[in-house]
């Protein structure tokens, strides 16, 4: 017989005994009920949130004192951020499933497993909260908040449309960047406080990667700032009204390239593949969150998706026309959310396609290629502004021609994407192969 050392049983007394009894009696029922009606609850919550925000914005707004108004809007934003993370996590799993000729979650909530992340959340809440004995307790507890809260704070200055912003700060672009920069501290704190070497490596990588990539990221954005002369996100967005060809990305070739350098740098700043070295699950076990479990781990997870949407939203506002419709119709926050979601999807697409880069290659790519390149873009964009004015009529014609070409190029790229996606969708039987298809679960 094998000898298995026994743990001393946990003794519950007083209030904790009552709680444990209640939880074991009603917990499973509650969870199954919640899951059964999760569909309704979730959508009721979404509808209530939208109604709430609309009502507040339309009618109650002028009647309330400002701090209550602010409180209400912050709660609404928090709800939005949670929905972004929940749908993002579910979407990631569906996207990865489809890319890998799987189906992804299909059961929870009946319709394509839409309630999967809710169920996961419930599971995580119930999990044991483990803190390593030798961890730096206060910092270990604090780290998830330091990671999540700044990512949320970025939304305070992020406009969803004209008037759809919590605070229309003069320096909102810099504010968003600053908040995204604080997030690193949470990760480094987690890595150090865990007192695990793998976590420490994750934190080290995060530190040098993020600090380096902040610079090309900021420089690419500055190229756009030079073109509009403002660091106010609303001004930046409003400068691009009037359809596809008015978007900042098509204004000059430097901005066109700056969009891509920004996107690459933003991948690195969100720790997304191929820059997911801080997590690097095949090298560092799980990197900085190796020792985290339960709800603390969820907070890191949330922070990642919230930041993903934030950087995509920034790219949308600055380069892709923000809340303006590409076809010249009325602008609306829906356009903004749609474009940002598309960019988030591209992030997922990249993640499930590419292998991971090595740390020295990450640094090389930044210091030797991205950084000088974005510096050149910044310089080019500045020079362009110098000549692109009524004083140089000859240049004006050239610039307009180039704008048209870039716009058409963008259209072609988008068209190619949709063509490829459509081709893949309609030929999915042939492409995957009839035999493999029969093997798909649910087929």
């Amino acid at each position: 017989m094998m000898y298995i050392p026994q743990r001393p049983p946990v003794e519950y007394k007083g209030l904790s005994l009552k709680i444990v009894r209640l939880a074991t009696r009603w917990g499973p029922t509650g969870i199954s009920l919640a899951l059964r009606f999760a569909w309704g609850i979730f959508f009721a919550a979404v509808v209530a949130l939208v109604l709430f925000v609309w009502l507040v914005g339309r009618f109650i707004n002028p009647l309330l004192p400002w701090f209550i108004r602010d409180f209400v809007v912050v709660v609404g934003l928090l709800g939005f951020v949670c929905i972004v993370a929940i749908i993002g996590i579910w979407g990631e799993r569906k996207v990865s499933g489809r890319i890998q000729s799987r189906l992804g979650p299909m059961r929870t909530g009946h319709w394509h497993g839409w309630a999967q992340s809710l169920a996961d959340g419930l599971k995580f809440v119930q999990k044991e909260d483990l803190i390593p004995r030798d961890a730096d307790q206060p910092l270990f507890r604090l780290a998830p908040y330091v990671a999540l809260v700044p990512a949320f704070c970025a939304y305070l200055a992020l406009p969803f449309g004209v008037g759809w912003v919590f605070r229309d700060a003069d320096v909102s672009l810099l504010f968003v960047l600053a908040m995204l920069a604080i997030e690193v501290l949470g990760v480094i704190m987690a890595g150090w406080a865990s007192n695990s070497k793998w976590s420490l490596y994750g934190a080290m990588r995060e530190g040098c990667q993020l600090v380096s990539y902040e610079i090309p990221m900021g420089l690419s954005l500055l190229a756009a700032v030079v073109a509009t002369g403002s660091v106010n996100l609303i001004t930046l967005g409003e400068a691009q009204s009037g359809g596809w060809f008015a978007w900042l990305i098509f204004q000059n070739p430097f901005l066109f390239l700056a969009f891509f350098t920004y996107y690459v740098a933003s991948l690195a700043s969100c720790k997304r593949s191929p820059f997911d070295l801080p997590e690097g699950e095949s090298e560092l076990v799980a990197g900085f969150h190796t020792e985290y479990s339960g709800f603390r781990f969820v907070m890191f997870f949330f922070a990642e998706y919230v930041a993903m949407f934030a950087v995509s939203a920034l790219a949308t506002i600055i380069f892709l026309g923000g809340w303006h419709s590409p076809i010249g119709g009325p602008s609306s926050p829906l356009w903004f959310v749609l474009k940002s979601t598309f960019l988030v999807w591209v992030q997922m697409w990249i993640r499930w396609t590419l292998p991971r880069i090595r740390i020295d290659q990450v640094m090389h790519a930044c210091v030797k290629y991205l950084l000088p390149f974005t510096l050149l873009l910044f310089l080019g964009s500045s020079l362009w502004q110098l000549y692109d004015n009524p004083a140089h009529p000859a240049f004006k014609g050239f610039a307009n021609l180039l704008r048209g070409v870039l716009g058409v190029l963008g259209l072609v790229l988008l068209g190619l994407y949709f063509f490829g996606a459509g081709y893949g969708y309609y030929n999915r039987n042939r492409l995957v192969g009839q035999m493999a298809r029969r093997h798909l679960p649910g087929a």
Partner: protein
Amino acid sequence: MKEIELQSQPDLLHDGEVPSDVRTEELVLNMGPQHPSTHGVLRVILQTDGELVLKATPYIGYLHRSAEKIAEKVTYRQFTPYTDRLDYLAAMNNNLGFALAVEKLGGIEVPPRADYLRVIFAELNRIASHLMATGSYGLDMGAFTPLIYCFREREWIMDLFEAACGARLTYSYITIGGVREDLPEGWIQKCREFLDYFEPKIAEYNNLLSYNHIFINRTGNVGICPAELAVAYGLTGPCLRGSGLAWDLRKATPYCRYNEFEFDISVGRGQNGTLGDCWDRYFVRILEMVQSVRIVRQALDKLTDGPVQAKVPRIVKLPAGEVYYEVENPRGQLGFHLVSDGGTSPYRLKIRGPSFCNLSVLPVLAPNCLLADISALLGSIDIVMGEVDR
């Protein structure tokens, strides 16, 4: 070799630039036995300076199940299932090696149909094993999708095996004297269907992974193992061929009528780096899958009617004597040193696991790699701990 020189002169790594009052320390990192990229319960102690690995010492034995001791207690036929569990990703090949060793010592002749079936199953299992290696190597490099694609195809091979012998991982299909059962009806047609489906998929893996720029940068020029080093450390299989040496037991000392088949030995050419780097070792596996498909096609064509089992008694008794027999497994040469004292069970059975020998080169290749290169290196050596620890 430069690595060995560096290792023996540690003071070279820290020249006088560090001020004397700054005390630097190397970080000792315990990789495994539970680590995602050690492919099982391997434990490697890494001495690192930042991300740079100075020394790697593997510790094995966490999966030691004393297969060699068990062999002395069971009959020859009873040991076949234990061979399944050596390299559990290539159980057919293990069965084949053990069966051939026993047949060599006992002088047992195998009917031709059984020989061809053995080849078909061994090569299909080689494809399955290489698919697993390819996919998990992608995973080691951080690309998740190739793994799922490889599993998608491997599933078909598992289905074919299940149809033939009822098992999906530990087959015990190739037994002493032939194979256990003849093929079920329609199996050959299914197998041909699979081959037709599978061949174009290899191009898909190449597009997705092999020729991916990031992948090449991660694996090319990493963990270079020259042919002399590989031979000296007893590396065999794709690890040896990845170093550019065209050495394949199926050609060198053909068994199971491998001399009747037309196929090429796949070798690394160093086209994406230096000869013998991780990419070469990886790509040899891709090339070998193509060759295996070729062999299976030929074997299906040659398949004759007839019995699939030689007349071997239920309890095999071998004459006193000994034999050393090696076959070309997906991971290298699997050898059985079988000593018989004339009884019904082996007197001594020493198993030479290819992964065991391949792993022994890790301490030589690891120094001066980055931390991430260790998983690239381990993945390209492609060990199965069941075989390392036996």
